[in-house]
Structures are given as C-alpha cells and as structure tokens.
C-alpha cells in the first residue's frame, strides 16, 4: 500500500484524544513502511511497533489500522500457509486483530518483541482453527514440500523477500529430517508425539531432532535475527 493510500485509508478512523504517542507512532509508521531494511530503520520499526501496541491498548483505532497495514502481509501469508484456505485465513486474520485490540494491554516489551507476540498470536489462532476444522488430512510432507522451493529474487515485496530468503536459506541448510519436523510443528501444529506417529519415528528421536533443528536454525539466523523484526 502506497503512502497516499495508507493515509487515505487511516484518515477514516477516529483519532482518540490524548493519544500523542499513538499519533506519533502512526505518523512514523507511515514514513517507515515494512519494506525498509537497515539497522536504524529496524530499531525504529521495533520502537514504532511497541508504541503502536501501547496506543492500541489505549483504544486507538488508528494505531490498530497502522498495525494492520504493517503486518497484514506476513500474518496473512502465515495463516494461508497453515490453513491452506484464503477464506479461512481472512476469517482468522480478523479474529487476530480483534484479539490484538482486546489484549494489547497484555503485551510487555520487556518480555518479548512485538513481532514475536503478533506472529505467535496469529499462529495460535490458526492452529486452533485448523484443529477445529479437523483438516489435518494433508500429506506428511506438505510443509516441507511447500517451503523452500518458493524462494525467488523476483519478490515484489523487498523486505519480505529478503527476510524470507534469510529464513529459507537457513532452513535449506538444516538436515532434511530436522527441517521437516520443525515445519510440521510450526505450520501444522503437531506435537512431538503426533509428529512421531506421523513420521513413524521414535518420540525420543523426534525430540532430539526438533531441539537440534532449533539450535541450528538460531545459529544460522545468528546476527540476522534482528532483521526479522
């Protein structure tokens, strides 16, 4: 969404009184879109996300609209991947932002990053919906099959593309059995026991591979973790 479009879209919402920080965050958010990358901008982006969540906690609709604009792509992509349905993903995305609206006061920047909080919230809702729909009929290797092959330099979204590449490269370096277990857990919401059953692999082996895969993933992401917001 272009700057003019964003301003036009957000101007339709009421601006609560006494919300200077929220307004400032919304204004900065307009000038530091998600696509920008670089240490300074990312630090600002992190601060802006924190300020926006605090403003949402004070019932600032415009702040929520800004968060929606900044996170709709990554969250919607995650939801579509988990639910394998655009319709379900849209439904859950609306639920996620309703939950953000209700629970923004629970966010504590000392205990976690806004990005992690938002993504965790969205993933949790999606996994709940997935279980509700009992749609775990997908084949075992769905997660692994759909993940790395989509890496492309032709991405229209620069930041998303770069961040996606960082993660995909890291995943590509993981041993296949570790990567599969991580993706089954993350995108299909399977527990270790369920993965063990799905892959006909001993539970102890699954636990070991999951932990090893996470340690390796963190090492590979290394200093680039901050760029993942």
């Amino acid at each position: 969404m272009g700057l003019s479009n964003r301003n036009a879209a957000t101007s339709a919402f009421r601006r609560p009184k006494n919300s200077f920080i929220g307004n400032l965050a919304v204004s900065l958010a307009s000038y530091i879109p998600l696509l920008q990358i670089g240490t300074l901008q990312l630090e600002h982006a992190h601060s802006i996300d924190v300020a926006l969540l605090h403003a949402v906690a004070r019932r600032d609709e415009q702040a929520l609209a800004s968060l929606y604009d900044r996170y709709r792509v990554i969250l919607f992509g995650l939801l579509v991947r988990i639910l394998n349905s655009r319709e379900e993903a849209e439904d859950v995305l609306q639920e996620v932002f309703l939950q953000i609206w209700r629970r923004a006061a629970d966010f504590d920047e000392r205990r976690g990053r806004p990005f992690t909080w938002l993504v965790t919230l969205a993933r949790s809702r999606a996994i709940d919906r997935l279980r509700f729909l009992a749609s775990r009929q997908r084949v075992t290797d769905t997660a692994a099959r759909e993940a790395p092959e989509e890496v492309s330099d032709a991405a229209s979204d620069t930041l998303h593309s770069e961040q996606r590449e960082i993660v995909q490269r890291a995943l590509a370096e993981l041993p296949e059995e570790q990567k599969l277990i991580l993706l089954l857990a993350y995108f299909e919401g399977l527990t270790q026991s369920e993965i063990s059953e799905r892959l006909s692999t001993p539970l102890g082996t699954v636990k070991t591979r999951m932990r090893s895969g996470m340690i390796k993933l963190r090492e590979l992401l290394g200093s680039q973790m901050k760029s993942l917001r």
Partner: protein
Amino acid sequence: MAHQDYQEMLTAQALNALDADDARVLEAHVQGCAECRIELSSWEDTAAGLAFAALGTQPVEPTIQLRERTLQAIRAETLALGTFEGDGSRVSNVVDLDQRRPRSWTPALTWGAVAAAVVFAVLGASIFILWQQNLAARDELARLTQQVREANEQLARQRDALGMVATPGTRMTELAGTNEMPGAHAMLAFDQSGRALLMAKGLPPPPTGKAYQLWFIAGGRPLPGKVFTTDNSGAGMLTDQIPAEALKAAVFAITLEPKDGVPAPTGAIYLKS
C-alpha cells in the same frame, strides 16, 4: 526433573509442540525461573522467524474489504462494551446521529413483527369484549339487586299488613271509586295506635309529577296523609300514621296531587270511604 531437563524442553515449547503433560510441567517451572523465561523468549523469537518461510514469491494479501470489516468489528465491540480510553475515561455508548444506520430487517424479524401485531390486536379485542361483558354483567347485577330489594320490601309490607289485619281491634274501611275513577277500590286497615295500611286496586299509574294522596277527614277538615303510586296493574300500597285528631274520623279519601303532596287537597277525589 533437573533444570537442564526443562531447558531442553524450551525449544519444543517455543513451537507449541510439547505434549500436554510436558507443557504443563514446563509452564509451572517457567513461572518461577527467570533464566528459563528469558531463554524461552529467545526461542520464541527464533520460532516466529519461521513465519517468513510461509511467504511465497508473490506475497498473498487479504482482500481490501477485510481491513474495513475488521475495524468496523472493533468499533462495534467498543460501542457494545463501552471500553475505556487511555486517559481512563469511559467512552460514551451514545451513538452519534451520523453513525446511525437503518435497522436491517430480516424476514424472520418481519414475520415476528406481524405475529406480534396480530397477537396484540387479538389481545386488545379480547380485553374490550371482556370489558363490555363486565359492564353488562354489572348492570344486570344492579337490576337484579334492585328487584330483590323491592321484592323484599314488598314482602315486608305484606307481612306488616297481615300482622296488622290479624291484630285484635284493627278496623277495616273500604274506599270506593268516585265518578272520577269508578273502577278503583281500596281497603284501609288501622289499629288503635293509628298505624294504618292502605291497599288500593284499579288506580292507573299517576301522570308524571303526580301522586295519589290519602286524606283523613275529621270534623269536615281534611288532614293530609302520605302520597303513593301504583304499578301498571293499578295496585298500590301505603303505610301511614293517622294523626291523633283523626283517629275518630269516619271518612277517608284519596286525591290526585303533586308528587310531593300538599297540605290541603287540590285535586279531584278518586276514592272515598
């Protein structure tokens, strides 16, 4: 379980992949272990990074309408719950005039309204009918009560008359109709105390504003008695007290007078003894 055992569970917890029992045990530990809380937060950051693996080369976007739907849902919830603003003041639940929207009538609502209107109309008609019936019943009850009261009074008079006639010393005098009312006839019974009972027949009901009056004529001077009327059968009854000076009167007469009676006769004599 050793601290290291908990630490080794943190990666799975960051992926929400622990089985329920393990998750409960770890969560209880993390509540009281700052080191594990920090470590878990770090693993959660790593796990959250996997979200980027979901993005395709052409990122998918939700429909444009979803943004407005989401914000409308938030506004509706805010209005419904009367949530608090940042400064702690409660947001008014009063809807601005320009925010009002026409009620969207569904077929169910329409039929519900029609059914409610029909029930209301039937109920109203029933109440009106019952009210009318109640009024009629009250009138009938009043009429019957009046009839009973009159019958009782008549019965009491007849008992008095029988009692007086049966009393020793009671005298009976007959009054016959004059030329003014030749078909009329009356009997007057009176005892020694002067208590008198008059029973008349053949006297038509008096005209409006008129009544029959009894006279006691003593020494050629008429003394006024009470007035009375007759029913459609021409019958009438009167109890009276004969004045002491008229106890020895030999003549009794009945005239037609104004309904409240007069001290001296003005009308024609209809009956006389």
